[in-house]
Structure formats: C-alpha cells, structure tokens
C-alpha cells in the first residue's frame, strides 16, 4: 500500500471512530459500553436506546454526509474552475436557499417541516439556473464564479428586503435557520443527502480523468477530447443539487467546501480521485466534531453550527495567509 492509500485508509478508520465517539456526546450521559450494547441490540436502558437510535445516530450520520457533501462540492468546483477559492456558497446557492426559505416562512405559517427545506432547495436551484443562464448569455463559462457572486448579492438583497418588512417571528426563524443547525435532522434527511452524495461520487469517479485534464487549462483538456463546457455544467449541476439538499435540511454551513479541499491538497494530492476521497473523509470528520462542539460546549443550549464553521474557517485562512507570507 502506498503513502496515499495508507493515509486514506487511516482517515476512513478515523471517520468510523469519530462517528462512534460523537454518539456518546450530548446532554444524556451515555458511555461507550452502553453505546456498544445498544448498537448490537442488547441495550438494558430503553431511554438510552431511544436517544442513541432516534436522536444521536441520525444527527451524527447527517453530520457525516453533510460534511462529505459540502467538502466534495467545494473540491469539484475548485478543480473544474481551476480556482482554489471556488465554493458552493460563491455560486449563490445559499443565497437562493435563503430566499426560498424566507418566502416559505413569510407566506406559509404552517407545514414548514416540509415546505422550508423544499423552498430552500428550489431557491438554491433557481440561483444556479440564473448563474448558468448569465454565463451562457455571456458565452463565457469561466465567468461562472463572477456571475455567482453577483447573483448571490442580488438574491441576498431581495431576502433582506422581504425580511425587513416581514413578521418578526418569521424573520427570526429564517435568521436562525441560515445560521445552520443539525438539531432537528431526522434519519430520512440522511437517506436523501446520502443518495445525492452517492450519485455525485459515482459521477465524479466516472469522469475523474476528464476533470483532471482541466487542471492544465481548457485548451489542453479540449485537445485530450474533453467537452469542457458540458463537463463544467454537469459538475456545477451536481454540486448545486448536493449543496442545496444539505442547506435545505441543515441551513447555512459555510467554509467547509473552501477549507477542507485546501487541507487535502496539502496532505494527500491535487488530482480528482485523491482530492474527492480525501475531502469526503476529512469533511466528515470535521463536521462530526464541529457538531459535537456545537451541542456540548454550552450547558442547555446549542451554538449554531454555521457560526463555528465560519469562525474556524476564517482563523484557518488567516493562518494560511500568515504561513504563505512566512514562506515568501
């Protein structure tokens, strides 16, 4: 086994251990022996059994697939646009989701359990359609990122306008939703996110050589038989669906797609297969532990997960900037 395979294998073990350890964290006191007993179906404490299977496991599993999904979406976008700062959030996906959630909150007082994630998902897809449409009209697919930033600001301003005139309770709900949380996730959410994640990973594995070819420029990739615009559009669609689904259930969780691929490039490699597998594993570990911090650092309260990822992300980037300054 070479160095990269060994690292990936070690990370996979770490994901499993992190997930198991994370289940033991929370207000109800559950130790590892109780956890193991409940996992193999010989649990003596029924309350612990319910907490583990209905609260903790869905939450940890959603953190696992959401972390994988956000990190993979960032990695795919960065490699297909050759821009290390590309991130699903820069393509207006969260702003679109925010607008969808705002409209659902303001116009529908009831049935928000289904309507909120659905509206967020439709809003995110709407923003991606606008971004792609603008890039197509300009006939410059490489301007996707700039179009994304413009659309992001446009949709955010519409959201703020609606919230400014909206009912205060609904406004609060949207603002808290945008901060991101895994407190209300269910097992069904895990199945939906995991399905989209699986489709995304299979597609990327199938096309990994084409995506790699883009790393040396569009012209070089085209000379190797790659249809550059079609590939980029397909990858953007996959990232949009993945991020929109995660944002719809978990709210805004920033910086994961930007930060994790950056770490993976330093540790494992830059080509698509290494980057995607590494990002999935490190992204999962990262979000599992951020969620543990979110739910166990304050007594009787949770910190929104998006606040922690943004804080860690900004510190991480300041560190990277400082280190690159020291090197140069």
């Amino acid at each position: 086994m070479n160095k990269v395979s060994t690292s990936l294998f070690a990370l996979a073990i770490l994901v499993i251990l992190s997930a198991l350890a994370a289940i033991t964290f929370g207000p109800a006191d559950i130790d590892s022996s109780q956890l193991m007993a409940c996992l193999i179906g010989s649990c003596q404490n029924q309350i612990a059994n319910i907490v583990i299977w209905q609260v903790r496991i869905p939450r940890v599993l959603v953190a696992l697939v959401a972390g994988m999904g956000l990190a993979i979406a960032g990695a795919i976008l960065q490699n297909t646009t050759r821009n290390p700062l590309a991130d699903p959030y820069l393509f207006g996906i969260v702003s679109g989701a925010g607008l969808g959630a705002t409209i659902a909150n303001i116009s529908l007082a009831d049935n928000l359990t289904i309507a909120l994630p659905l509206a967020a998902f439709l809003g995110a897809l709407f923003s991606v359609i606008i971004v792609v449409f603008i890039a197509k009209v300009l006939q410059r697919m490489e301007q996707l990122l700039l179009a994304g930033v413009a659309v992001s600001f446009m949709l955010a301003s519409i959201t703020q306008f609606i919230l400014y005139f909206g009912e205060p309770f609904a406004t609060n709900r949207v603002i808290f939703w945008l901060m991101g949380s895994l407190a209300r996730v269910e097992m069904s959410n895990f199945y939906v996110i995991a399905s989209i994640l699986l489709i995304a990973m299979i597609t990327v594995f199938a096309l990994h050589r084409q995506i790699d070819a883009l790393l040396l420029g569009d012209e070089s990739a085209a000379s190797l038989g790659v249809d550059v615009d079609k590939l980029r559009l397909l990858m953007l669609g996959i990232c949009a669906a993945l991020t929109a689904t995660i944002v719809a259930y978990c709210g805004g969780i920033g910086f994961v797609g930007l930060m994790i691929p950056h770490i993976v490039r330093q540790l494992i490699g830059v080509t698509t297969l290494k980057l995607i597998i590494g990002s999935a594993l490190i992204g999962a570990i990262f979000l599992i532990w951020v969620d543990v911090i979110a739910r166990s650092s304050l007594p009787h309260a949770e910190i929104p997960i998006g606040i922690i990822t943004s804080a860690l992300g900004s510190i991480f980037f300041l560190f990277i900037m400082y280190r690159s300054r020291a090197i140069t």
Partner: protein
Amino acid sequence: MSTLLNISGLSWKVLNKTILQDINFTVSKGEVIGIIGPNGAGKTSLLRCIINQANILASVSVSGSVHLKNRLITQFSAKEIAQHFALVMQKNDSIFALSVQDVMKMGLLPHKSLFSLDSDYDKSQIELALSKVGLSHALESLFNQLSGGEQQRVLIARALVQASQILILDEPTNHLDVYYQHQVLQLVNKLNITVIMTVHDLNLASLYCQRLLLLNKGKLICDGSPKEVLAPEQLSKIFGLPCQQNVDAITGATQVSFYLEESCMQYSAISEPLSE
C-alpha cells in the same frame, strides 16, 4: 510516404475579416512541417482548424475540408481526434501543485473508459515516455517548478503517452532561452512521428523542419523546402525588411538575416574605420 492529412480549399472568415483563405496542402507520414509567417498570418488558426478545435469546422464561417486518413475530420469524435493528434501549446501551467506524473497521466485519457484506473502498463508507458525526453528522474517533481524547457519536454512526453500519430506544436519555443529552444526542437525531430508546428524563428524552423509552409494574411504563400520557402525576395515582401539568405557553415542549413537599412549604415559606419 502515405498521406495522413489532406487540407483542401480551407477558408475561414470572421466578421468579414479573412482568417484563412483557400489553404491546400497534404501531410505525409513522418514529415516534420513548420508553419511560419508574420504575426496574424493565421498560423495558430490553421492548427485549430486541423484539429477541429471547438468543432470549428462545423461553423458556417468555415469552408473547405480537412481529411484525416481519407475521412472527413468532422466525422471524428473529440476522443478519436485526441487519439490521432497530440497538442503541445506555448505555455501550460496550473495553479495547483501537479506532479509530472499527474500531467503525464492526462495523456492516457483518450484511450481510457469511464471509471478506469491506471494499470502497470500505463505506468511503464509513462516511464518510457519520460526516458525518451530525458526526464526519468522528474516523475515525482512538481510540474510548475520545472524550467520552461523541461515543462515543454514533459508535455511532449505526455503527447507520446497519448500515442497519437500527429504531434501539433503551437510556438513550442516561445518563452524558452536559446539552449532550450534547440533542445526541444531537436527532441521533436528525434521522435520519428509526424509533426506540424508553428515557429516564429525562421532559422530554427529551417534547421529543424524538412518542409515549411509560409502564411501571410491567411493565404498559403509558399510550400516547400526551407531553401525554397525562405527566398529573400519573398520574405522581404512579407516581413517588410531587406533579407539575405545564407548557408550555415556548421549545420549546412539555410539561414536568413534581416536588417534595417539604418542599422546597416550604422554598422558600416562603425566597422569601416576598423577595416582600415
């Protein structure tokens, strides 16, 4: 020699501007052809048409035909074209830290199916190609940290891994100093495959190409041996400078020198007293 490529009546107009006009020539297996001409003559555009880049030949502004092995190039898929032509451009770099091995693996793409992983045979082909360009030691090196000449050699090695029959080079010696210019072109010459390249430096083109195509304002002015194509009257007219043809004493290749009349007078003003 069997004919590989046949370019017939190729013309390209964009917004009433002629890019290429009625270009006709054939390329035989094993030829090393240099396309020369002043800036804006249509050299790179001709290369783009030959490989049907971005499906250029399907455009209404392009007429004429390009046949590869007696089959219209527009009937080839992008993957098939990549199996026949390998392109090496002026400059390639990546913002990401790609290793030489990563760049070399890109050359496998036209021959691979979806989901395919690298085999031991692929690895041996990569090592063989790198040894042919004298860079066996650089497999794990970072591509961006190589010199310009080494990067071009890696891209030529990638073209060898691509196993195509025709190597297309667009100004391969731009950005390179004299030593690397000769090193890269000497390497291209030794590969024993069909090569079509655009070259700015007429003397380099003459030294390393068996046949030259002289383009000006989108037209093919002359097609022949370096001695025929680098005729002083012809070059003076196209480049707007007096020109002289010589034979290099060491290589025996046809060489040309351009000079401004002013600089000639200045030179004689300096050299005359010395000669006395």
